[in-house]
């Protein structure tokens, strides 16, 4: 018996910059996870993943990643994905420094 499908986004790394990107509903790759397409249907997920993997000159390592619906777009489930929306916590570099709002919870990060 297969497990019930849980909502996903498609995430990858940009080929040139190497930073985290997410696939939008209108086929763009965004640096802001809030703009990602939240996929709630398994068959649609398979099609979107094929589409993502069909862009090897744009992104690397496209995969389906668990997410949930937030008030303003998808939010990661696991803290590893939250890190990818945030950048490292030891310096103000990466996504946070570039002005993207971190999504999901990074434990102990309230003070940053």
């Amino acid at each position: 018996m297969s497990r019930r499908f849980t909502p996903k986004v498609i995430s990858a790394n940009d080929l040139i910059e190497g930073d985290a990107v997410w696939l939008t509903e209108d086929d763009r790759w965004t640096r802001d996870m809030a703009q990602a397409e939240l996929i709630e249907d398994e068959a649609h997920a398979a099609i979107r993943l094929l589409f993502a993997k069909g862009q090897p000159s744009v992104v690397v390592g496209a995969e389906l990643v668990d997410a949930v619906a937030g008030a303003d777009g998808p939010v990661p489930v696991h803290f590893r994905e939250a890190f990818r929306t945030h950048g490292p916590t030891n310096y103000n570099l990466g996504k946070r420094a570039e002005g993207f709002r971190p999504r999901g919870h990074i434990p102990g990060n309230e003070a940053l």
Partner: protein
Amino acid sequence: MYQYNEFDEAFVRSRVAQFRSQVERRIDGSLTEDEFRPLRLMNGLYLQLHAYMLRVAIPYGTLSSSQMRQLAMIAERWDKGYGHFTTRQNIQFNWPRLKDVPDILDALADVGMHAIQTSGNCVRNVTADHFAAAAADEIADPRPIAELLREWSTDHPEFQFLPRKFKIAITGSPNDRAVTRSHDIGLRMVRNDAGEPGFEVLVGGGLGRTPMLAQVIRDFLPQADLLPYIEAILGAYNLKGRRDNKYKARIKITVFENGLDAFKADVEERFARLRSQWSGADQEILKGIEAQFAPPAFRNAPTDEYETVRATNPVFRAWTDVNLHPHKVDGYAIVSISLKKHGATPGDATADQMRVMADLADRYGHGELRVSHEQNIILPHVHKSDLPAVWAILREADLATANIGLVSDIIACPGMDYCALATARSIPIAQQIATRFEELQVEHEVGPLKIKISGCINACGHHHVGHIGILGLDRAGVENYQVTLGGDGTETAAIGEKMGPGFPAEEIVGAIERLVLGYLEIRRDAEETFLETFRRVGPEPFKGFLYGGEETADAA
């Protein structure tokens, strides 16, 4: 120091040109990621959580001042102004862009450096004692041998596709500062009864998910037999090593599953066949390499000024108490520059700091620097009369933290702040522990204590050989930290013992504080170190400190 010869130069340049073309073909779509990935890894380029990461080898941990300046230039021009020195004497740049990497590699080649074989299933950067050619306790300088191994292993056609990565470390001192027993091959330079130079050869060490200490496969190998013997070990491993299971592919498992005796028999049989093929050309090359490691022109000068400043300036004295190591030449000291300022990221240096250290090396240290596996920088040859000046300059650059070998001199891998393999963060835990012990003002009283933190089971942070080891894991989607005690990476090597259940991030610093303060209560006297106390009393009292006396049988 070693200068590239024509062959080195041509090889490294041709590799850069080759990679430049590979990057172009990746970007224009003619290479897929599956095709490109092994090519970029061969050149030290990883893809991490937030960016690419370029791992540059610092062979046997030795850097010239001009090389250090070039690393600073690279950090500023193509990265974000800093670099991270690692536990295997590499430097990692955390933010390069793919299209810039060939230019970075060319800039490295300009100063005789490269990123070749810093990844992949091949012989990695050969590491050595960071006090080589300076330490008072040394038998011989291990670096010419390490350079010979670098030349021999680089692009070696038989050993580019080993079952798994392969790490060699070498020490020329009986006091092992190179963690030889946790390497695939550990080499210890020794002399036999006749006074001839050779090696004690250890094999099958490794950390990771199955930590093992290397065992002696040859207690005395004559110097001239080294390369054929290493070739025999690698040849045996290349055939016997398991390729069916990544987690059983390291040589430690090969030795363990076959037994040391059977493995040794295979190696010795191969060695007997191979030895005669070695004409001695390698020993001629070694002589040429050795000539390039001639000691600098040490000077004979009074050290009164140093003693005077030491007697009158307690802050300087505290720094000299812990950041200096005895030099083999009278009047000289080995200076360790701490990259572990309390609250800072272990092993990170800014481009400005790199330049300050390079300038210090030029002015006071014969142009030479070292990188230690403990993620600090060393000025190996400083005359004591120059120490006050060196210290004053270090202070201005925020590099004069007096904590070498103490609680806050923590090894930490990049962890989930950067690494795609990590299961938890390491850096913030190191920062918080260091900051907490600075508040407590007890680290000088506590004395020698090595805390090592890894953010996943692969153990880049050497937690298994930390007196206190901390392993960050993902427990049901939350960072959780497991504690091991009693590990030791020196000549008295030991794998740390796992304590009970792990601690959540917000509790691990308090747990470490209880451990260390508890040790102060039970140590025999101020001379008994944390490790000695642990060895004397065993884990039980320490479990009491960790868990408040409520013994828990099930490990996390």
